[in-house]
């Protein structure tokens, strides 16, 4: 699927419809001011709709599609980052960071050995720097007993 301005326009129209549909019911129980919480979002929605309309009608500006390999890598990266987000607190900073680094490093062409050393090193080094030196508290997760 190649991206172009028409798709962006459709996206904008959908966003505007959503903003307007949800924003329509926004009503203050009692209000002291002439302009309530609804006007601003609805004004934004109408401008977005206008932009969307222009883009949909005009179309064009096709974006060169990524190569097959690049798309696979990007999907993998999104999966890895989602995994990192979920495991950050659950497994703790050190383990989740080591895993993320290992996988992302592989994606960027590091060898298994380098990626593994990099991952473990990054997890421990950043934990020491942030948690101990800079006082930014990080989740300890499953290693809680040892840290």
């Amino acid at each position, binding site marked *: 699927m190649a991206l172009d301005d028409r798709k962006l326009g459709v996206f904008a129209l959908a966003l505007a419809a959503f903003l307007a549909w949800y924003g329509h019911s926004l009503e203050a129980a009692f209000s002291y001011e002439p302009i309530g919480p609804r006007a601003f979002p609805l004004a934004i929605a109408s401008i977005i709709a206008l932009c969307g309309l222009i883009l949909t009608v005009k179309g064009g500006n096709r974006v060169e599609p990524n190569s097959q390999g690049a798309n696979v890598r*990007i999907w993998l990266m999104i999966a890895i980052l989602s995994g990192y987000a979920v495991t950050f607190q659950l497994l703790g900073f050190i383990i989740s960071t080591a895993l993320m680094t290992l996988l992302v490093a592989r994606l960027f062409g590091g060898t298994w050995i380098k990626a593994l050393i990099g991952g473990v090193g990054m997890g421990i080094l*950043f934990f020491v720097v942030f948690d101990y030196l800079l006082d930014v508290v990080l989740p300890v997760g499953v290693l809680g007993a040892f840290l």
Partner: protein
Amino acid sequence: MNGIFDQLSIGFGVAFTPLNLLVAAIGSFFGTIVGVLPGLGPINGVAMLIPIAFAMNLPPETSLILLAAVYVGAEYGGRITSILLNVPGEAAAVMTTLDGYPLARQGLANVALSISAWSSFIGSLIGIIGIVFFAPVLAKWALAFGPAEYFVLMVFAFCALTSLLGDQPVKGVLAAMIGLAISTVGVDANSGVYRYTFDHPNLSDGIAFVVVVIGLFAVAEMLQMLENRLTGVSIDVPPSVRKMFNFMELKFTWWSTVRASVMGFFIGVLPGAGASVASAVSYAYEKKHYENKDPDAKFGRGDLRGLAAPEAANNSAATGSFIPMLTLGVPGSGTTAVMMGALSLYNITPGPVLFDQQPQLVWGLIASLFVANLMLLFMNIPMVRVFASMLKIPPWLLVPGILTISFVGVFALHTATFDLGMVVAIGVIGYLLRKLGLPMPPLVLGVVLGEMMEQNLRRALSITNGELGILFQSPISIGLWIAAAAVIVGPSLYKRFKAAK
């Protein structure tokens, strides 16, 4: 006159505390590295550091000093790869490649690096002097602004930012509106109504600004890098006879540097135009100025003046761009918008009263800009090799490192896994929007200004009980509407005028 010296002494008092000196040095160093790395510019560096500075409980002025040092540091760093590799380290350094790279190939790499560090310093210095003299005046003038004037001023800032970016203003407007829409999420301060929260507790305070910027400028940036899969480069600074520029070269470039600095400062103050526009304009001006007069001018083939001018201009523009943020509370560029978002973490709203209420913050920042530039000048001449060696960090280590720092910052904000998921989602959306040619600075500005814009609009309309006429009443608002119309229509009129000629 006396007032200025009093204020400067407050400023230097703040800047010379050991903590702030240390922070300025670290920021300058880190900023230069960020500037050196292709693909990362000041906005990425500043975005990454905001939540961490906040989590470290740095006082607001210290955090602002850190971010400002990163910003100017990146402007210094961008030139290194431009000169050595013909690859601009960040957007404003594109013009630097034109004469910088040819000079390096002629064996004058060290001369080019040192003279450009010098002209960057002069550019910043002139920018700082400009802030000292103009900012308080502008702040005093802005005190007369009521809610209606503020609203129109923000409309003007959006118009300026979107019309100067790219050739499709529709996309700029769309980006700004998406930003404003993001800012409406959360509980409405006036009525207590929850907007677009879906009864989710993590959304009731709105989408944190930091989450948006890190999504857009760290995660999306990494996806972009993955697409091209950059490989690490190793470069050597070619040996050259002299390490430093000599007096002749200083004299040769002096007026170009000064002219470009002054021009850059005024371009930087205008909302919308930033360091990249300033360096391009000043380069074009110097080239035109000398090509008719000087038969020896060799712009594009290694003219020192063609190197000094854009470097001076981008630094003075970066410095000048602090003015609208500090005095009006309306940032004129993506990077200063991000900085203003950082101040909002501390519940500080920049604007005209800041000069009276938080003099230590404003003048401390101004003095620290000077200190950071001095540090950068001395760091940049002997340490060029150190900075250039940063390019040897392979992407497989760099990318996870950036992601880790970003996640640490976002998590530190609310210790919420929800925010991390949000960062990934916004990153993916941001990546797609960027591919579709949507400019990011208006979007960031929308997120930062959204609440203020809505509040000022509602306040203005409360005065007249809903009558829109108040937005067109005072001479200031009318002037701003005219200015806004001019920046929208101006560029296309100019193009047509030029074509007709």
